[in-house]
């Protein structure tokens, strides 16, 4: 590959995807069969100080393909991105998002706004999902530095991008996680309360959805727990996730597996 120089009329600008398309760097082709590992549950919950994201670690095909896959990553300092659906396309999607945001920042010497990042991903979701069966649904959450507020953006299969003021859920375990969040969500929760609720939602999904992994006490693998605040994206240590999920598991053991009418 030589030096990628373009005439002013052909220049792809600061968009990495436009450049990659023009130079044939990324290929999207259709397949008749769903060939890759998938299935997930990731939730994002808004609290008074930012966003929390919790996601399981299991990749599933006909059997469990991976127990420690990372479905939430920092897209940049202030933004988290999570994926559900095809693992192969999802991982590529995360890389493209990370690279695109940084590329734009370097090319223009200014960072994209959070809304700009959310809108940028929409046509990529649309293109992937309308032309291939390897569906990917991302979830974008971040700290909006121009408005000093945490924001969540979810997508539908056709690439529609919707901002959520409360919480968002993606993946095969969504019904169970969503049910938990609907009953437990309150406006103005603290980060700790939001983390607790989001962890419970993932616990319920892992309990009921065969394609979502719960806490794995044998291998010491726990769902990823992330906070996004004015200080940026922070992945909480395994010890934090472990104590959170051990507490939930202990309560559930005491009640002999019954959630028990109140959120616990």
């Amino acid at each position, binding site marked *: *590959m*030589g*030096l*990628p*120089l373009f005439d002013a009329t052909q*220049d792809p600008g600061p968009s*990495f995807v436009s*450049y*990659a398309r023009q*130079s044939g*760097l990324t290929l999207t082709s259709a397949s008749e069969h769903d060939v890759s590992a998938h299935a997930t549950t990731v939730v994002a919950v808004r609290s008074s100080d930012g966003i929390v994201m919790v996601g399981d670690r299991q990749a599933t095909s006909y059997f469990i393909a991976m127990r420690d896959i990372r479905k939430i990553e920092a897209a940049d300092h202030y933004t988290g991105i999570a994926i559900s659906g095809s693992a192969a396309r999802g991982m590529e999607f995360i*890389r493209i998002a990370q*690279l695109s945001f*940084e*590329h734009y920042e*370097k*090319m223009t*010497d200014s960072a994209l706004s959070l809304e700009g990042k959310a809108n940028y991903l929409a046509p990529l979701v649309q293109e992937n999902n309308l032309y291939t069966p390897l569906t990917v649904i991302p979830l974008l959450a971040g700290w909006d530095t121009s408005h000093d507020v945490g924001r969540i953006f979810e997508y539908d299969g056709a690439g529609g991008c919707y901002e959520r003021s409360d919480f968002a859920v993606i993946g095969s375990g969504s019904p169970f996680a969503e049910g938990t969040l609907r009953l437990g969500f309150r406006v103005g929760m603290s980060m700790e309360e939001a983390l607790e609720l989001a962890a419970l939602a993932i616990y319920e999904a892992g309990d009921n959805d065969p394609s979502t992994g719960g806490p794995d006490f044998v291998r010491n693998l726990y769902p990823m727990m992330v906070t996004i605040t004015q200080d940026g994206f922070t992945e909480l240590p395994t010890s934090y996730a472990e104590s959170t999920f051990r507490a939930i598991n202990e309560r559930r053991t005491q009640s002999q597996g019954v959630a028990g009418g109140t959120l616990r």
Partner: protein
Amino acid sequence: MSNMMYVTPEQLMKDRAEFAQKGIARGRSLIVAMYDAGVLLVAENPSASLYKLSEIYDRIGFAAVGKYNEFDRLREAGIRWADSTGFTYSREDVDARALANYYAQYLGHTFTEGQKPLEVEVLVAQLGNNVRPTKIYRIAYEGTITDEPQFAVLGGDAEAIKNRFTVTVPESASLQDVLRGAVSAIAGPERSIPTSDLEVAILEDRGKRRTFVRLSDADVEALLA
């Protein structure tokens, strides 16, 4: 019959070189120098938004003098090249030497084949790690590439500034000392440059993947005080 005058190749190259040199000499100069913990890039630049220094990749910085539209296009191509190389292979496979060679080939080609040579001088700096060394590559308007051992001066007054730059072994001096030496070398004995007319950036390991950092006017003032 054609009434084109015969011009010897020597004369043609000389004319082109003079043309490029004149264009480059019109702008202000810049210095890129190693210091004990990284690489300093400092340019005299009255504009606070039309930058001469830029981030190319995690450990690679870019500096240029001359015509803004010409070197900005090279800067953008460098970022594209680096991002797509890192995407295709791995982040650690992005090497400043490869980029410097591409710039050298392009500038050399344009110098001999183009309508006019590019009126730019370009510099690619790399912060070393356990995989690659710290490097400063300077590429002249006609495609000559030089591997500068400790520092490089770009622009019209390069020779005079080079002689004034008194930090003899910048590699082992602190950021503060090298910055002071660089700013007084660019300014010369009769002038002092206001902080607002300085564009300063560093490549330095600060526990993050991206090492390129622009220093604010306040940072620069504190270092020069």
